[in-house]
C-alpha cells in the first residue's frame, strides 16, 4: 500500500475533517495524530503542546507525513526540517548543520532522499514525507533499522536517522551492489563517531532482506 492510499483511507487514525477541525480550533501550526504509527507516542502525549504558528505572511501547506495528512499555516521561512522538529514534534530527524553539508536531516520526499534542512516546508506542499519515525511497521523494525543495531552502525546516534533514511533509499536506488558503491552513495552522511565500516556492513545485510 502506498503512503497516499494509506493516508486517504477512512478511519485510519483521525479523519481528515476531524484533524483539520482540531487544528483550526487549537490555532496550531500543525498536528499529527495517530493511534497506530510509531509516531503515535509522540503525537498523543504532546498534541496539546504544539505551539501556535507565529510570523507574518503565513502560507497553507499540506503534507502527508508518515502516511498521515498534515495541514499547516506555515511561516514561509520554515524549513521542512524545522517544521518536522519544532511543529510536528517529529524530532527523530536531526539538525547537524542546517546547510546541507552533513546529511543528518535526510528524509524521503515522494520516495526520494532529500535534505530536509535545504527544503522549505512551503516547497514541499503536496508531498509525501517519510521520516525515521515512519520506517518501522508497528513494533517491527525496518530491516535497515535492525541491521544498524545488529552491526553497530552507530554510536552516539545523532546521524543515525539520516544514515538509515539514506541507506533505505540507496537500496531502493539500486546502489548497494558493492562495498565501494555503498561507501560512495553513503558519503553524503557524516558520522563523526565513525561507524562507517559497520554502516557498510548494515546496508549490505539489510539490502539482502529488502530485495
Amino acid at each position: 500500500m502506498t503512503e497516499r492510499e494509506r493516508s486517504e483511507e477512512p478511519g485510519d487514525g483521525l479523519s481528515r475533517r476531524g484533524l483539520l477541525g482540531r487544528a483550526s480550533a487549537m490555532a496550531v501550526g500543525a498536528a499529527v495524530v495517530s493511534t497506530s504509527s510509531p509516531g503515535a507516542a509522540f503525537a498523543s502525549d504532546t498534541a496539546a503542546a504544539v505551539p501556535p504558528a507565529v510570523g507574518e505572511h503565513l502560507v497553507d501547506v499540506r503534507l502527508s507525513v508518515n502516511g498521515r495528512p498534515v495541514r499547516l499555516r506555515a511561516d514561509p521561512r520554515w524549513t521542512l526540517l524545522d517544521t518536522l522538529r519544532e511543529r510536528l514534534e517529529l524530532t527523530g530527524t536531526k539538525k547537524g548543520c542546517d546547510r546541507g553539508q552533513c546529511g543528518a536531516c535526510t528524509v524521503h520526499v515522494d520516495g526520494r532522499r532529500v535534505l530536509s534542512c535545504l527544503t522549505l516546508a512551503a516547497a514541499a506542499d503536496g508531498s509525501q514525507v517519510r521520516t525515521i519515525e515512519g520506517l518501522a511497521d508497528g513494533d517491527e523494525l525496518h530491516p535497515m533499522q535492525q541491521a544498524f543495531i545488529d552491526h553497530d552502525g552507530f554510536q552516539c546516534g545523532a546521524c543515525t536517522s539520516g544514515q538509515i533514511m539514506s541507506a533505505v533509499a540507496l537500496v531502493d536506488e539500486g546502489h548497494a551492489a558493492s562495498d565501494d558503491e555503498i561507501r560512495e552513495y553513503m558519503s553524503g552522511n557524516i558520522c563523526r563517531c565513525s561507524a562507517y565500516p559497520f554502516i557498510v556492513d548494515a546496508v549490505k545485510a539489510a539490502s539482502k532482506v529488502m530485495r
Partner: protein
Amino acid sequence: MTTTSPVGAEIDRVEGRAKVTGAARYAADQRVNGKAYGYLVQSTIGLGSISSMNTAQALAAPGVIAVYSPFNPLKLYARQGDSAERYVPLQDDKVRFRGQIIGLVVAESFEQARDAAALVRTQYREEGHPRTSVAAAAPGTTVPSDAVGYPGPPSKNTVLAPGVASIDDALRDSAVTVESTFYQDPQNHCAMEPHATIAEWRDGRLTVYVGAQGPQQYAAALAGRLGVESDRVHVVSPYVGGGFGGKYKVWNDALVTAAAARDLGRPVKLVVSREQAFILNGHRPALQQTVKLGASHDGVLNAVWHETDSEDSVVGYCPNLPAEVTRALYKTPNLHFDQRQVTLDLPPISSMRAPWATPGAFALETAMDELAVKTGVDPLTLRLRNYATTSPETGRPWSSKHLDECYRVGAERFGWADRSPVPGTRVDGEWLVGMGMASGMLSATRAPASARVRFRDDGTVTVASAISDLGTGATTMLAIVAADALGVSLKTVSAELGDSALPPGVPAIGSIVTGSTVPAVQAAARDAITALITLAVQDAASPFHGKNSTDVHYQEGRLEADGRSVSFAQLLRAVGNPAVEAIATTAPGAETTRYAMDSFAAHFCEVRVNRYTGEPRVSRFTTVVDVGRVVNAKALRSQLVGGIIFGIGNALLEVNAIEDNGRLANSSLADYLVPVNADIPAIDTHWLDYPDTVFSEFGSRGMGELTTVGSSAAVGNAVYNATGIRIRDLPITLDKLIA
C-alpha cells in the same frame, strides 16, 4: 539453570532501538511547553571593544521578546572552577576573539530570532592586532599542570643517567640523532549534535536539557556562573550526540540561555549553528612541537627530548601537555620534556579526543620512523629494541603491559613482512603504495565513582550512575556489569545515566568511565545483595524470617536456604517492598603510586598516494590493543575503529586554518573536512585479553581515546614509505605531496 555472563560478548547497545527509531531524545528534542528561542550575535572583529550596539531594529522585529547585549546584560557571575570559560559573556564591552558572543536575541520562533539577530548593528573600536601565531609567540610559558586544576603529570621534567651533565650532552654524545619540528592548526570536534540547551526555571530551580559529558560536573559549573547552589540545577542529558571532549565544559551559549530563561521567566531553547559550534565550543589547539632523539647506530635510544608550544586561548581553558606519551613509551636513560603554552587571541580551546597524547604521539612516532630510516633498522624492530618495562621517568613497573605482543600480532595480521624498506618502490598503476606503523598509549585512570543497584518487585534490576553515554556504550556497560555481578539475565537489567540527580558519576573525559564505574557497580551489586538478605531474615512476612543471614545465600537472582528457593521479586512482593537498593562508592588505592597504568595499541597502515595528483588514501589498517578485560566486544570494536578513523582525519583531512584577523577560516562542515564513508577502508582490529587486576579487580582499563593516539603517525609513516616525502605539518594533503 545458569545465566551466562554477558561480559566480553558481542552485546547490542541497549538503547539501540531508541536510536534507530528516532525515539531517543537528545537535548534539542526535549519537549518543553511555552519555550522561546534564542539566537546568538557574535563579534565580527578579533580584538577591541564595542562602542555601540543598535538593537532597535531587532527589538522591533516580529516576535522578538528580548535582545541582550553588553548594554542590556544578563546577570551572571565570574568564573567558578575549570569547567567554564575565562570570561563571562555580555558583562563588558571587550572583544577577546573573533566570534565572541556579544548578544542574544530571544523570540517566539527560531526563524524570528535568527533573522532579528541579523538586524543588530554593532560599532567596534579595534585595538591592536590579535595574536594568532603560535610560532610568532613561542617560546611560551611552562604552566605547572596542577596550578590550573589538573594535578598529575609535570609540565616539565628532565631525567638524566648517572654522570650525564645535561640532556644536550646526552644528545651530543649519541651516535645518531634525529631532530624534527611539527605543526598543526586547530582541529574541531564536530560532534554531529551541535550544542543545544533548553533551560526552564521553576521556583528558583533550573532544569537544563543539554548534552553534557559529566552531568554533575556540568550542573556545578553552571550553578556557579548563575549564582545559585549546585543542587538547584538539574541537568538532564540522557543522550549525547557525540562529545569527543567538546561537551564537558559549560560553554557560554548555554550560560546565556539559562540566564535569559531566568530573566524572562520562560523556558528558552538555543541550538548553536554549526558555524557557531566551530568557534564557540572549543577546538584542539594549534601546536608547534620539536622532538630530538639520540641513539646508537643500531637504534638503541640514549636520549629523548620533546618540547612543545601550544595555543592557549585568552579565554581558556586547559593546558596542552603533548609529551604525555614521550614520558613513558620508550626505554631511555635520558629524557627531557617541556610543555609550554602561548596565549593567543583566538576562540576557546578544549580537550579533543586524547587531547595530549594524539598530537604528542604524532610527533614522537614520526620521529621514531625517521630514526628507523636513519639507522636502517626496521620500524617494528626499533620499537621492540627500545621497549620499556618500567617507566623511564618514574621507574615504576606497569600494572599490565603487553604492547610487545600487540606489535607482533599486528605485524602478522597486517603482513608487515611484505613492506619494502625503500620508499617509493611499490607501485600499483597510478598509485604509490606504502606501509607505516606506530604505537599508541593512553594513561589508564580511575576516579572515585558511585553507582546504585536496585532490585525491583517486578523482577527487574536497575543500575544507575550519573555518567554520560556519548555513543561510547556506557549505558550498555552499566547493564552488562550489573547483570554479571548479580548473575541475572541482561534483559532484566535497565540502566540509568545522564542525569545529575543520580549517584555521583565520573565525567566522560580521559577514558575513565568504564575503569572507574565498573568497580562501583560491582560494589553496589554486592551491597544490594546484602540488603536483600537482611530484608529476607528480618521481615516477618519473609519466608526466611528469623534465619541467620549467613545461612541465606544469593545466587542468580534467587535467595536460597534450607532447600527453599525464592526469587528476589517473590521476596519483595511477599514483604510488600517495591524495591531494595544499595549505593556504593569505590576509588583507586595505593596501586596508583606503585605502578604505571596505561592502555596500549599497535597500528599498521597501508596508504596509496596517487603519482600524478598526490592524493593520499588509506587502503588498509590493522590495530591491535591491550586494554585489559573487555566488557563488550561490539562496543569495543566500534570505539577502536572510531578512534582510528579520527586519527585518519587528523592525519589527512582536518584543519581549521587561522587567518591573521583571528578568524578560524574553515568553520563549516563544507570547509572543514572530516572523514566520510568513501574515505575509509575495511579496518582490522584485534584485542588481547589480559585482565589488569592491579588496575581493578575486574581488570578493565579505559580505551575510548586510545586508538586516536598514534594512528595519525602510522598514516604519515606510510605516506613516507610510499613517496619518500616526510610531511610534518598536519594535515598531509595532496598539495604538500606534489610540491
